[in-house]
């Protein structure tokens, strides 16, 4: 019974994707005739390496988009997936060796690690920007090197507060507090009623980096200033460390070992009732509910998302993942690469794809506000302005290989983890981080 229902679900999903693909194809063929800026080279084929999907339906719609592109232009596109942390080393090696996938789709500042190995896509970016109301400011930072666009900042993964409505109600809060003080009170109250919160403090490049940077920035701390001078050792950072320790003390034990998957698992198992994540926990609960799991159906009903609270600096200091897509100069088919990038970002493709991602991904240009996904479910709402609320990797400083190294080395995360565990005083933790940052920004 269960099995048949599941296979039924799977097959309907497949026909859905198929229907979407065929409807896309008609439009795509017309697009190739009229709007395409660069006609792909004769006999072109493309290989694209992307971060591995978090939500199956996102990948399904992406593959439908790819199939439509192939149908319209005759260019086959092979899509490879890698874990989030593995894209960067692979892209770096490929850039060095001068061979590998034609396109890399990675995280944050990836294109800036080897900006001279990225195809200039300025005309594509300008076309998309002009047509769709302009790129988000953060998208320009990630996509541009000087005046040149070296990548398209395709989408953002909104990292939000995920919580159980019933738990915060039980803790005496009708809604998620909008300021850091209230948020701390909520965490304390959750601990008191035995339904604690928890966020990853292990080497978790997604969720871990997201919350520690929010915590640092919301108190006015920064790793480097606008000229890349290290300024982490400051009273503001110290305030952030004290605040983080206060949170940590009322969280479920064990968060220091959490990687990106642990909070999902603990949340679904009702071990924690508030954490930070994309909307993938909600999606997982909904998927289980669709397979007939009643407990998960109730949980999905109860899950909600919220913006990050605003700290003493008085403005949002969120840190969402940006996924830039770049073409490599060694490709034999640069026009095909550009055509694909343009195709992907046209609202007719971009909209349905983001719809398939069910708010796991947020748009990078203004016209994206009107996409169907943002009216599909009120719980998606906090993900909508991700591109406009996020700060960029490196904070005030440059987006480049140094910022990437600091993220990969978990400088901020280790500092906060050390202070939280009580293993070092805030001053010591800052000193260690300062030293680390100086090493990277030397």
């Amino acid at each position: 019974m269960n099995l048949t229902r599941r296979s039924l679900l799977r097959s309907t999903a497949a026909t859905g994707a198929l229907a979407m693909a065929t409807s896309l194809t008609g439009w795509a063929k017309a697009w190739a005739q009229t709007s395409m800026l660069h006609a792909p080279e004769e006999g072109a084929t493309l290989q694209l390496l992307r971060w591995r999907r978090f939500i199956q339906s996102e990948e399904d719609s992406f593959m439908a988009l790819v199939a439509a592109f192939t149908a319209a232009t005759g260019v086959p596109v092979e899509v490879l997936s890698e874990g989030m942390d593995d894209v960067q080393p692979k892209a770096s090696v490929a850039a060095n060796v001068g061979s590998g996938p034609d396109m890399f789709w990675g995280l944050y500042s990836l294109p800036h690690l080897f900006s001279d190995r990225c195809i200039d896509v300025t005309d594509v970016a300008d076309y998309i920007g002009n047509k769709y109301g302009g790129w988000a400011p953060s998208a320009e930072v990630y996509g541009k090197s000087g005046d040149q666009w070296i990548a398209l900042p395709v989408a953002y993964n909104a990292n939000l507060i995920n919580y159980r409505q019933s738990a915060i109600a039980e803790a005496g809060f009708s809604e998620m507090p909008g300021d850091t003080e209230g948020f701390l009170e909520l965490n304390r109250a959750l601990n008191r009623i035995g339904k604690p919160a928890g966020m990853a403090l292990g080497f978790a490049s997604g969720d871990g980096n997201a919350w520690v940077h929010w915590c640092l920035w919301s108190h006015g701390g920064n790793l480097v200033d606008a000229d890349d001078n290290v300024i982490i050792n400051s009273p503001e950072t110290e305030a952030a460390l004290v605040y983080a320790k206060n949170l940590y003390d009322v969280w479920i034990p064990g968060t220091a070992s959490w990687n990106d998957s642990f909070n999902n698992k603990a949340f679904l198992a009702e071990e924690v009732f508030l954490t930070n994540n994309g909307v993938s926990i909600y999606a997982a609960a909904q998927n289980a509910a669709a397979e007939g799991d009643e407990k998960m159906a109730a949980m999905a009903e109860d899950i909600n998302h919220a913006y990050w609270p605003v700290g003493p600096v008085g403005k949002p200091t969120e840190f969402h993942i940006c996924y830039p897509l770049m073409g490599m100069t060694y490709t034999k088919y640069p026009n095909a690469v550009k055509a694909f990038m343009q195709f992907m970002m046209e609202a007719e493709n971009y909209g349905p794809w983001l719809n398939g991602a069910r708010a796991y991904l947020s748009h990078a240009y203004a016209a994206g506000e009107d996409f169907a996904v943002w009216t599909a479910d009120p719980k998606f709402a906090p993900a909508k302005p991700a591109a406009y609320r996020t700060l960029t990797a490196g904070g005030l400083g440059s987006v480049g290989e140094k910022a990437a190294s600091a993220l990969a080395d978990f400088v901020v995360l280790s500092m906060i983890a050390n202070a939280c565990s009580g293993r070092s005083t805030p001053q010591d933790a800052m000193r260690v981080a300062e030293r680390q940052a100086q090493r990277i920004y030397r």
Partner: protein
Amino acid sequence: MADVPLSPTRSAAAKAGGASAWTRLQTNRNWLGLWFMLPAAGFLILFLAYPLGLGVWLSFTDSRIGRPGEFIGFENYAWLWGDDVFWLSVFNTLLYTTVASVLKFAIGLYLALLLNRHMRFKAIIRAVVLIPFIVPTVLSAVAFWWIFDTQFSIITWMLQGLGLIDHQINWLGDSTMARASVIFANIWRGVPFIAITLLAGLQTVPGSLYEAATIDGATRWQLFRFITYPLLTPIIAVVMTFSVLFTFTDFQLIWVLTRGGPFNATHLMATLSYQRAILGGNLGEGAAIATAMIPFLLAAIMFSWFGLQRRKWQSGGSDD
């Protein structure tokens, strides 16, 4: 073993009967040796000696992934010298190696002594004991990862069921527990190797020695201390050199279980060098960390050399 009694015969035969044949080959022996050595030497020079040298050179450059570096002298080392995380990794590595090796040795020797006794199903038991050593480290580490899960640990569940504890154990999230957990996993995998090799050593100890000593009224401890242990010393030296060396340079177990966390408390030099070189992209700095391991390795090798020399000296010319 069998060749040794024969060796006098061999030289005699070489001098007498086969003299002409041997002299014929004597002339081109060095060339012949070279030909036979070629494949092995090729591999070891191209993929071992050359990278070893290149690694040392890299540690003096600022190479990054995707970009050849320039010579910067001791800059990488100077930064490491003032880097708390690096020193923490050195401390972790030494702690990990020392504690794991000592315990592996103690448990391994104890297990070997147990297995050396007369019992039923000995062959099967011995075969089963070795299984943790056969199964690839990463695959068993994955099992430990799940066993040491903070929320869903089966050990926590069992201890709670027995009423021994009433809270979750933070296996991999607390620095002390995380260190203990990874050391435990390392011991688990290393004990079979030590036990089985020491068992082989034990089986060469002539039982007559024990008999004679027992008749003289020696206690069990005295038997071990004055017969088993001295005869076993050479093999212990070699086994422990290997064990220390591979524990010191361990990577996979840590990478699967903690990736160096929490708070860098389980970062070994090998994992830190991977993190900085491959994930962070600073090849030069990663190479410097790897090169910093070499003095420790040399110390271990000297120790082994000493053990081997001593063995030769012990066995003298008598019967080896």
